[in-house]
């Protein structure tokens, strides 16, 4: 066994192995360092895996050496590779940038536990992405969720606690729904392996339980992914979490749930349930459109900076779903590319917020008045992230919107409606981003408020790294687009 062949296992095991070691360290600095190194290594492994996937196609790994339906198999395809890059990348950047911010927001004695939780969230999320086993997804979903609850609860405001309680309740209900769905499918097929399930559902004569199972799984995962109207937990959880945690979770946690959702609906159910694609689209398309409109509108009227961006995330999740609900090659490519690009754009925005949060204690839009003079680099990064979110050409956001609109154009009359919604919400995005830019650049700072200096370099550098990535992937988007179109092709296997 070469090291390369073992990489899929190491991707999860490495952060898991580090977590107990980090948890009870005496020195917070050291625990941060160990966590960051582990996360960066995980990112390196993800890069290697992506290379391998691009070279040889899907990677399989049999846990414990047991063959697939009997043991648990890992399966990493292009879709998974893309998600792994997002998860490990977001974690690494958030850690690198978040040091200063976390030192402010988490008491130093609690930091080792906090970083252990961070590693577990990382391990959980990458575990979900890689596994090919339905129940294993549940187990890792719970690891990542419990760790995420803890990370969010680390926020300094007491409202973090009520927010996280809601998150916990809705997250657990979602996971349990998923478990019910798996149970029903298992009852009818006798297997837990996704590929095996797909093959065996075809033999099931009576599909009522499968249909209900598909419903439970879709709704459960939609809850976890904060799909409108099941998004109630998200705004406050993102708002009151520590800033670095928001960067991490906003970039990847909901996307991983969407990933599982797409894998189930397309791999497992699509080929077996009659007219499943029509039902899937009919169910999710209206939700996606509503999510886009409601999320954007809520963001326009929101005055808290972080909650504003959180509402925008709800709208962006709508975009991803919108692409998926086209059930076409272009549409799925658009949705998947948007997962990547939204992670970049939101990552940049929340990093900029973290920069501001280091210097300001309140993060209402009005508090930013005139801040651009004191923190020019931070605000410039915010503007760049905002442009990517709006979808200005030359930024990553444009690429996904381009694919999305192209996909909608294929859809005929509903496509026109879709385009109208996309355009309207882009304009709303202009409004809510611009409102902040205007206040920051042309407002004047309260004379009594103490002077503010630019964010520390340790925060600015990663922020600008992501900003540049936004531009880079806006101009040279080959990597995410290639991965996404390959992923879309394999998802659509039955319909092509």
């Amino acid at each position: 066994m070469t090291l390369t062949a073992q990489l899929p296992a190491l991707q999860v095991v490495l952060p898991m192995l580090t977590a107990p070691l980090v948890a009870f360290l005496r020195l917070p600095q050291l625990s941060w360092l160990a966590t960051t190194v582990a996360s960066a290594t995980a990112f390196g492994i993800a890069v290697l895996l992506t290379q391998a996937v691009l070279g040889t196609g899907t990677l399989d790994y049999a846990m414990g050496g047991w063959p697939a339906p009997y043991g648990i198999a890992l399966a990493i395809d292009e879709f998974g590779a893309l998600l792994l890059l997002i998860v490990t990348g977001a974690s690494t950047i958030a850690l690198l940038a978040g040091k200063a911010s976390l030192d402010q927001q988490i008491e130093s004695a609690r930091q080792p536990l906090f970083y252990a939780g961070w590693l577990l969230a990382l391990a959980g999320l990458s575990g979900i992405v890689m596994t090919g086993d339905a129940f294993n997804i549940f187990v890792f979903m719970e690891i990542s969720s419990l760790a995420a609850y803890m990370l969010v609860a680390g926020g300094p405001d007491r409202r973090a606690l009520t927010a996280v309680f809601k998150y916990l309740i809705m997250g657990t209900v979602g996971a349990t729904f998923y478990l019910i769905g798996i149970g029903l499918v298992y009852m009818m097929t006798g297997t837990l392996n996704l590929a095996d399930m797909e093959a065996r559902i075809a033999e099931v004569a009576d599909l009522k339980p499968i249909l209900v199972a598909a419903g439970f799984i879709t709704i459960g995962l939609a809850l976890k992914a904060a799909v409108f109207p099941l998004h109630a937990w998200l705004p406050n959880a993102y708002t009151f979490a520590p800033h670095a945690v928001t960067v991490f979770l906003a970039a990847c946690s909901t996307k991983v749930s969407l990933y599982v959702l797409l894998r189930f609906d397309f791999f497992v159910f699509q080929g077996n349930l009659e007219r499943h694609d029509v039902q899937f689209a009919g169910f999710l398309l209206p939700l996606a459109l509503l999510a886009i409109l409601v999320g954007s509108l809520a963001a326009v009227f929101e005055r808290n900076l972080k909650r504003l961006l959180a509402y925008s995330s709800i709208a962006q999740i709508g975009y991803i779903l919108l692409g998926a609900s086209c059930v076409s090659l272009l549409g799925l490519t658009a949705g998947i590319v948007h997962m990547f690009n939204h992670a970049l754009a939101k990552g940049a925005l929340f990093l900029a917020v973290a920069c501001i949060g280091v210097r300001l204690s309140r993060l209402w839009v009005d508090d930013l008045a005139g801040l651009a003079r004191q923190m020019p680099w931070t605000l410039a990064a915010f503007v760049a992230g905002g442009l990517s979110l709006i979808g200005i050409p030359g930024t990553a956001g444009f690429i996904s919107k381009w694919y999305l609109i192209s996909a909608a154009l294929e859809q005929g009359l509903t496509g026109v409606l879709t385009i109208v919604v996309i355009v309207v919400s882009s304009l709303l995005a202009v409004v809510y981003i611009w409102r902040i830019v205007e206040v920051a650049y042309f407002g004047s700072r309260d004379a009594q408020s103490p002077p503010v200096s630019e964010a520390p370099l340790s925060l600015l550098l990663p922020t600008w790294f992501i900003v540049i990535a936004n531009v880079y992937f806006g101009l040279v988007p080959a990597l995410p687009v290639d991965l996404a179109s390959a992923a879309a092709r394999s998802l659509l296997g039955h319909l092509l």
Partner: protein
Amino acid sequence: MTGNWQILAAVLLPLLGAIGIAATGTRPNLRETVTLATAGALTLIVWSLLPAVLAGGRPTAELFRPLADLPIAFEVEPLGMLFAALASLLWIVNSVYSIGYMRGNQEKHQTRFYVCFAIALSAAMGIAFAGNLLTLFLFYEVLTLSTYPLVAHKGDAATVRQARVYIGILLATSIGLLLPAILWIYNATGTLQFTSGGILAGHIDGPALGLLLFLCVFGVGKAAVMPVHRWLPAAMVAPTPVSALLHAVAVVKAGVFTITKLIIYVFGIDYLFAEPSAGWLIYAAAFTVLAASIVALRQTNLKRLLAYSTIGQLSYVVLAAAILKPLAEVGAAVHIVAHAFGKITLFFAAGAIYTACKKTEIDQLRGIGRRMPWTMAAFTIGALSMVGVPPTAGFVSKWFILAGAFQSDNFVAIFTIILSTALNAAYFLPIVFRAWFREENVAPPSNHGEAPWPAVLALTITAFLTLAFFVGNQPVLDLELQLVRPQP
């Protein structure tokens, strides 16, 4: 990054300049030197492309390739060459003027001003040389965004409100109308490449073509065809050099340039001419010309009057393009130049007056000719050019447009041009008359003379150019006749 280095340099040099300006922000003299040096170098580079284009060459370059068949790529053709040459040349003049104006008025945030200016110029170069619609759209948005800080320069509440109108209209129209139009075109034809004779023939026809034209014309908000003209008067809150370069040259010209380019290279003149559903454009343009002139008549603030005059003059270009005849297209191109020279002179003059004695209302200008003879002489030349009186640049372009209109017996256009000429005269000549032949009615706050010398120098140069263009327009004609001549 491949292809002709001059093109890439033209786009990237102003960006480098912007960095240089930002780096030298604490030392004004050095900063202004950087600005001027960048502008000079840019002009040299752009003009060095001219011989090749005159000889029929079409240099190309490619920057990136974000989508498989949609690169960010450039191709120099006569229209773009003209626009780039004009914008780069006037940047030098404008920089000289800016130095006088900004220092004379002790404006704040001068570094931000020069940085944004340089970025805007980079965007203008990108628009001029864009080889496809996507590239054009990209730089169009960059231009919008980079000029926002210039418009909102003063930063008080009223200014910000107006600047919000400016950015709101421009972004909303471009994202809301132009982008869907681009996608539509791409979806229908599979390409966005600018091609002689257009790309739409055989793909979109009938009422759909009219609708697409609608999306394009109103999506290009910078062309200020009514009713999306509101941003232009709003943008007059900007410092005068901004109004001068951006709202007489770069931004608005980018708008009409885009429309002309779309009509020639995407729709195709002949294809559009044969399509009755596209006929509405000429009426929209004619209406804008006349309505803007009438509104201008009623203005009492000099800069607002110039703004409405600009709206009218821009629609001349759209009108000329919409005549859809070769000579009229040449006229449209020539009018871009002619109007640029004339209008920048007028704005310079308005700014010079403001710098010298803080006067902004037309009514205050009585007798000012005697205090500021150079300025008012230049103003007079600019005004005559707007009206289209020989020997000014305005006459040349109007001549071609009229010729084009007669070519197609388009009486709507002919009538509009004649009537609007009368209206132009009606709102410009009284100002000139007042300035030279009336006594001062308000005592000036100080016993002022001319504005600082760089400003006067600049407006003298542009006034001279306005006159010179009347006799020396041959190179421009040579260049632009290629538009209508079949490609070798």
